[in-house]
């Protein structure tokens, strides 16, 4: 039998022929060929990951061990872990970490809860539900950059419509982007809005994956809606919720555009998340080494957080 396709670089033997001659050596040769061909399939992805993910990861660690020369004279002395020490001891870096954690706590739980509510609503079988599903998914089509500009309009203190609503309700105006405590919430609210589309789509598809028979038998047993939600919907949805939790947390830690457009890290560093300070350190102060050390620390924190999420929460996740 001959190869019919153009991939015959390695000369794959057909399965039948190998089976007809079950010698140990030919079986080994076959498995080696199988591996070689499989690697060819993986090669395009591996090259991209190698050049743009794995190499830069190690390069970042390497860069973090050298001090940068802001004057571009090419002197970059080896300083070992000094820059890690400086970062961890520096008040502004710690504040940045604090802001990042706070921002994550503001956005992730609320973002998931709202999307879950919408998904439960959109999973009801009523006429015209398809329209509402599209509407709830719509924010996924609006880039964080474009959404930030729209919210800039809403938050505007002079003519902003958000303060107008607050005033009509008898509440005082809020200086959304210039009052430190409000600014982080302002960024968080926008991020929640921008993230709803993705969370909604994933959670809705999770809900639709729950077998109808489970609901039917629960109803026959006389369970009410709240009971059904607690005993069937939530446990069955756990893997999906877990997926959304991991993705949202990683996204929150990487937020950039909304901060760049709305606050530029201000006021008084109230929204200066670590990613933003890395950006400024690397591309404005040209402290590449120090910025790399900050990035590596953030990477380790995300890794630990994800590991904790896997160890603590996934154990309670029930995979059907």
């Amino acid at each position, binding site marked *: 039998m001959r190869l*019919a*396709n153009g*991939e015959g670089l390695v000369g794959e033997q057909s*399965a039948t022929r190998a089976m007809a001659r079950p010698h140990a050596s030919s079986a080994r040769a076959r498995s080696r060929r*199988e*591996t070689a061909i*499989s*690697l060819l*399939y*993986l090669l*395009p*992805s591996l090259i991209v990951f190698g050049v*743009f*993910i*794995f*190499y*830069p*990861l190690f390069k970042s660690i390497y*860069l973090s061990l050298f001090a940068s020369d802001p004057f571009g004279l090419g002197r970059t002395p080896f300083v070992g872990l000094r820059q890690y020490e400086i970062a961890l001891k520096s008040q502004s870096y710690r504040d940045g970490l604090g802001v990042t954690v706070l921002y994550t706590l503001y956005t992730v739980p609320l973002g998931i809860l709202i999307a879950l*509510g*919408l998904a439960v*609503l*959109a999973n009801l079988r*009523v006429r015209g539900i*398809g329209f*509402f599903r*599209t509407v709830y*998914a719509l924010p*996924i*089509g*609006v*880039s964080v*950059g*474009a959404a930030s*500009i*729209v919210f*800039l*309009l*809403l938050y505007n203190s002079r*003519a902003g*419509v958000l303060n*107008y609503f607050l005033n009509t309700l008898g509440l005082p105006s809020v200086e959304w982007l210039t009052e430190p405590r409000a600014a982080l919430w302002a960024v968080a609210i926008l991020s929640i809005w921008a993230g709803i589309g993705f969370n909604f*789509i994933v959670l*809705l*598809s*999770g809900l*639709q*994956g729950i077998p109808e028979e489970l609901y039917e038998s629960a109803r026959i047993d006389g369970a009410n809606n709240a009971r059904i939600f607690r005993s069937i919907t939530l446990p069955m949805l756990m893997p*999906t919720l877990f997926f959304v939790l991991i993705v949202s947390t990683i996204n929150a*830690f*990487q937020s*950039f555009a909304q901060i*760049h457009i709305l606050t530029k890290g201000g006021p008084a560093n109230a929204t200066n998340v670590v*990613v933003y300070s*890395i950006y400024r350190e*690397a*591309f404005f102060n040209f402290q590449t080494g120090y910025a790399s050390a900050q*990035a590596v620390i953030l*990477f380790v924190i995300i*890794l630990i957080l994800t590991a904790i999420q896997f160890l603590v929460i996934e154990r309670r996740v029930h995979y059907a």
Partner: protein
Amino acid sequence: MSEPQTFGRRAFQLTIIYALLIATALFLLFPLLYGLAISFMTADEITVYPPKFLPDGLNLTSYETVLSRLPIPRYLFNSLLISTTVMIGQLVTASLAAYAFAIRRFRGRGLIFGLFLSTLMIPWEVTLIPNFQTIQAWGWTDNYLGLIAPFVATAFGTFMLRQFFLTIPQELHDAATIDGCGSLRYLVQIVLPLSRPALGTLAIYGFLQTWNQFLWPLLVTNQKEMRTIQIGLNYLLNEETISFNNTMAGVILAIIPTMVLLIVGQRQLVRGLTAGAVKG
């Protein structure tokens, strides 16, 4: 069972459901609808207090101003070209890799799969600085290559397609192999046509992700002609006083392509993500 009573209860439930659906939809859409309304207003209309929620008419001056001030069509073309190329690249690389993981058996498969998944854990900001240096060293700044190359492989997409490919019966592969069907031909003629929903989802997802990128295009483009729409829009904010009607006109022009894509492909996106995210 008394029929009229159940009917009355059902009608009551339906009213509440629709009220909730409409209220949440309006609440969620408000920022976009308000932005749309503002884009049709004149400078005088947007400064009145209390604010107006509907324009007096379909005034298109803001759109004319934005289009004359910024090369919006060029920005849209750049974004379209980059997003489409990345999307096609991701479909090709992810299909090949997912096929190896799902259907072929080879030594080290688990290990390499783990390597793929580990890329999901490596945040973008750790790779940012060296990637910028790489692109700079290769002279790929202000070049489509620099905006495309880093993104043409996707671990998430590979994982999603693998989950889908796993649902194709292995016997089909064995039968095809016995019939002398080569493995690449099996992938192209049998696996890919069967996986159209998953491929569609990955296409939409990859396109949206690339279209919405911000930090990377901000770093690797300087020339006006090379900017993507997301970065181009940002320049509307750099003026002395932001005129929101012009800015909103820019935003609306920028989101029309993705809105259309989403409305057309929403069903597809939901169906494919179901296969990818839930079947663990």
